[in-house]
């Protein structure tokens, strides 16, 4: 048996599947530009487009940025979840499990209530508190004197999340009910309805940069799932690499959810499915989960904005679908022993 051929044929298979998914993503993105509830629910035919100025405007300035946001948000949430799973050597974590989501939610709500309701401030505050929550979870897990590392991490994540969500509760209590409270509630449910070109052009370049950094680590990330001593012994600087990746993944996530609100489960489920499809080597599975995350969020958002006359918040959809997939995966897990 020729080892190189075997390895490369596996690689080629993965590349074919990835290209296929990417092509599907492009086709669906183009197709969904024509889907919506204007002028009536369903698809608009291109021949109706030529005479309809309003329709052109909606497609270019509302649907196109929204679809781009869905693609980038899906890719980064999924990639960040994947990164966290590798770094903590645990297929069951995502940034949300370590307090990042609740921290960002608190940060966003704080700015909304204080009244400096500029989107830049929401982004900065959500990112800051997301990172703070991550740091606090990590620090607490080091300090805990109970259980193994993973258990301590999950427990400290629960504790930090609880503190931020109770603080968030206080903010909601004092929030002005007709405006601020609504803003906060919608933010918590997640949605891409606020997307516009300005956001895409200001925030998304940073998120794209985060995606590129994570992507460049795609093979090395494997090594960071080993115990730290092993990673060190094969010539890595695991402390430095881990810090870089954690910060990049967290900044990407919090910047994204500062625009979209909380969108849960993407970062947990998509990496799982990607590993099923591409194998555990993160060289293939990381790009795989980026594309699958983008696909998943695009589908959820399109369903959310077209299915009913009122929009279904995307966070509700991803949680609902994600939780069902999660249950199915965990029930099947023992059959093939794959994580």
């Amino acid at each position, binding site marked *: *048996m020729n*080892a*190189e051929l*075997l*390895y*490369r044929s*596996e690689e080629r298979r993965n590349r074919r599947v990835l290209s296929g998914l990417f092509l599907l993503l492009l086709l669906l993105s183009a197709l969904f530009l024509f889907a919506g509830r204007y002028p009536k629910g369903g698809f608009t035919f291109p021949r109706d487009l030529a005479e309809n100025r309003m329709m052109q405007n909606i497609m270019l300035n509302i649907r196109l940025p929204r679809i781009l946001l869905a693609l980038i948000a899906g890719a980064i949430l999924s990639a960040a979840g994947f990164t966290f799973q*590798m770094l903590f*050597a*645990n*297929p069951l974590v995502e940034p949300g499990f370590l307090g990042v989501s609740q921290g960002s939610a608190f940060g966003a709500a704080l700015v909304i209530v204080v009244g400096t309701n500029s989107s830049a401030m929401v982004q900065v505050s959500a990112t800051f508190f997301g990172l703070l929550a991550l740091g606090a979870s990590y620090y607490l897990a080091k300090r805990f004197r109970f259980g193994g590392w993973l258990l301590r991490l999950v427990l400290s994540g629960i504790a930090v999340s609880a503190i931020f969500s109770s603080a968030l509760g206080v903010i909601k209590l004092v929030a002005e009910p007709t405006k601020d409270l609504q803003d906060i509630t919608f933010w918590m449910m997640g949605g891409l309805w606020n997307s516009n070109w300005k956001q895409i052009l200001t925030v998304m370049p940073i998120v794209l940069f985060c995606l590129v950094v994570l992507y*460049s*680590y*795609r*093979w*090395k990330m*494997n*090594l960071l*799932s*080993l*115990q730290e*001593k*092993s990673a*060190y*012994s*094969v*010539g*890595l*600087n695991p402390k430095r690499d881990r810090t870089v990746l954690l910060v990049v993944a967290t900044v990407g996530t919090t910047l994204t959810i500062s625009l979209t609100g909380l969108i849960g489960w993407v970062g947990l489920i998509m990496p799982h499915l990607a*590993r099923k499809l591409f*194998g*555990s*080597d993160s*060289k293939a599975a990381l790009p795989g989960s980026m594309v699958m995350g983008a696909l998943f969020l695009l589908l959820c958002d399109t369903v959310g904005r077209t299915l009913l006359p009122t929009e279904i918040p995307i966070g509700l959809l991803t949680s609902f679908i994600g939780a069902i997939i999660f249950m199915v995966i965990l029930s099947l897990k023992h059959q093939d*022993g*794959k*994580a």
Partner: protein
Amino acid sequence: MTAIKIEDLSFTYPSGTQALANISLEVVESSTLALIGSNGAGKSTLMDLLFGWKPSSAITLFRKPLKEYGRKELGRHIALVPQSEHYNFSFTLLDYTLFGRAPYLAEMASPTDKDVRIAYEALEMVGLASFAQRSITSLSGGEGQLVLIARAIAQQSRVLLLDEPTSALDPANRRKVIEILSSLHEQGKTIIFTTHDAQFAYELATHVAMLKGGKLLAFGTKEEVVTSSLLTTLYETPMTVCAVGGKTLIY
């Protein structure tokens, strides 16, 4: 040529516990050194110091202070086989063995065909090549240990460190590990391993260092050092070394 030189090495943990005191020894290239001693004797600490995980200025590797090695450069000179590894993702054995090639790859690069070939040969050497595409999570404990050795072989370093390589193995796998390490020794590798098992140390090593309470009790060729009286002092329990039919038995 001296592979590793340790000069008056002491190590104290931040908590204040002194783990090692005034250790000096020289490991000749292509020799096999067993570090033996009871639990808490300082064997694991010494291993951690030897591959740079804990910093020390008392260690020289191939005449260059360990501290002066770059991260990847050190990875090309010294490989570690840890006592165990957590397998949370179902990498194939080939994927996993390829991790040993990391010190040879440029930053952010992926393995080349040459790396794949070397990793596959390492799997052949430990007898697991036919399982190259199998998931690492499906392996038994003994096979898991063999894959860890394969990863270190793929690293193609001149020095190999093994932390308790046989502590969790059944007799068949233990024999296999001895055979693999013996053939690596014949290829000229310098091997350093820790063990509780004096018999195993005697079978495999050319040299033995005895650690007791963080101090070097004795160091020399195994014939010089592995004696009933030194072993009895080392383990604080009566031990006997005797020759039976051309074989040395320790009990």
